[in-house]
């Protein structure tokens, strides 16, 4: 009997451990903004030889102009040569694209802290009693060119004198 109990508890612990690991930093994030048909990356990359030399890409991904500490960095500092469908943290851990905030948080620690508290970035849906979605960093910032671009404002209110003149 005791052995069975022991076994049972071991099994329970065995199951609960990975679950709690997954809960670590678990946020209901939205899907990453992949260009259509580009993911999984391994569709194309599986048959390609890995070239780890920093270079300008001439054949594919030509629309990507890196403006994000481009002197210091290039593709394979974040993308994963070993498993193209994952990203890579500085310590070598492979993470999913849906966890990309951890990658960004390696350098932008103060922003990451605010994002986790809901102060940086955007959350939509239900804050209580329903489904909510946290925007990933990359839903607003293009990771290759993260600075916000100016946008056209919505029209200003109509001046009261303009309304009166019409009548």
């Amino acid at each position, binding site marked *: 009997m005791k052995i069975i109990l022991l076994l049972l508890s071991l099994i329970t612990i065995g199951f609960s451990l990975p679950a709690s690991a997954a809960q670590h930093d678990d946020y209901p994030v939205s899907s990453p903004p992949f260009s259509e048909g580009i993911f999984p990356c391994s569709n194309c990359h599986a048959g390609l030889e890995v070239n780890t030399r920093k270079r300008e890409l001439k054949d594919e991904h030509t629309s990507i102009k890196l403006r994000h500490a481009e002197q210091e960095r290039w593709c394979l500092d974040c993308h994963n040569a070993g498993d193209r469908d994952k990203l890579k943290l500085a310590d070598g851990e492979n993470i999913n694209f849906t966890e990309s905030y951890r990658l960004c948080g390696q350098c932008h620690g103060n922003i990451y802290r*605010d994002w986790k*508290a*809901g*102060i*940086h*970035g*955007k*959350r*939509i*849906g*239900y*804050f*209580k*009693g*329903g489904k909510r979605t946290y*925007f990933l960093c990359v839903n*607003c910032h293009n990771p290759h060119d993260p600075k*916000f671009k*100016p*946008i*056209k*404002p*919505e*029209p*200003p*209110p*109509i*001046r009261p004198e303009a*309304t009166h003149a019409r009548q």
Partner: protein
Amino acid sequence: MLSMGAMVGLSMGSISCTRDAVEEFLQKHFREMTEEEKKQVIRRLEAKYLKKYGKEFHISTQPADTGVLWGYGLDLSRCIGCRRCVYACVKENNQSRINPQLQWIRVIRLKKGSLINLENAEHYYNPETVPEPGFMYMPVQCQQCENPPCVRVCPVKATWTERDGIVVVDYDWCIGCRYCVAACPYKGRVFNWAEPNIPSAELNTGVHYLGNRPRMKNVVEKCTFCIQRVRQGRYPACVEICPTGTRKFGNLLDPNSEIRYLIENKRVFRLKEDFNTEPKFYYFFSA
């Protein structure tokens, strides 16, 4: 009772004396209605809206939760003045689009370095793109004051603070005197100078009695933190539309809420604090 009858007779002189019109005239103050009376009023209003707009409305009277006091945060270091919030609000809350044009959010532009100089603020700015170099943007809407001057001046108590801190208007009780408009130091209230003008297709039919239900000529209206949304646990429309994540919302009584975090960790101020209005709208700087 006799005098009531006489009053009805007097005022109904020119209006057709239907049962609905009489009921509308005799409708009680919202806070004095029993649950049954509320249901009757909602039924009548829904029928009225269906006839008027050809759309089925669902009017909620959901009361405030206990243990909730709503607070709002706005990050001045992120706002780019794009006015997406203004129009999301207009759409969500069924404001009149044009003639009269009513908006509950006013985005003012300030020169960098003179943030407190509201007299030189500009809200008709219209450049090709925003943000413009050298300027800051500051959206202003009802600040949901804890000590609201607008409520104090209302001669008929048509406006009051709900238990969750939202300052609301019973449009059916408002007499259109506009004392509250004059009393508000934030220009948080607007008036329906004419019959509201909303394309039927754009009406939002999920409404709250004290919030975004269609209004009529001669009543005052204002931001309610999207009462119809937040009482269901949803973020306000302006929070959801903002492309820069400038707007934050939460329960001031919940120590783990986003709003509490920003009050405790960021540089925060409230607009015109010296007036002692105690706004529950916190401007902050995240960077």
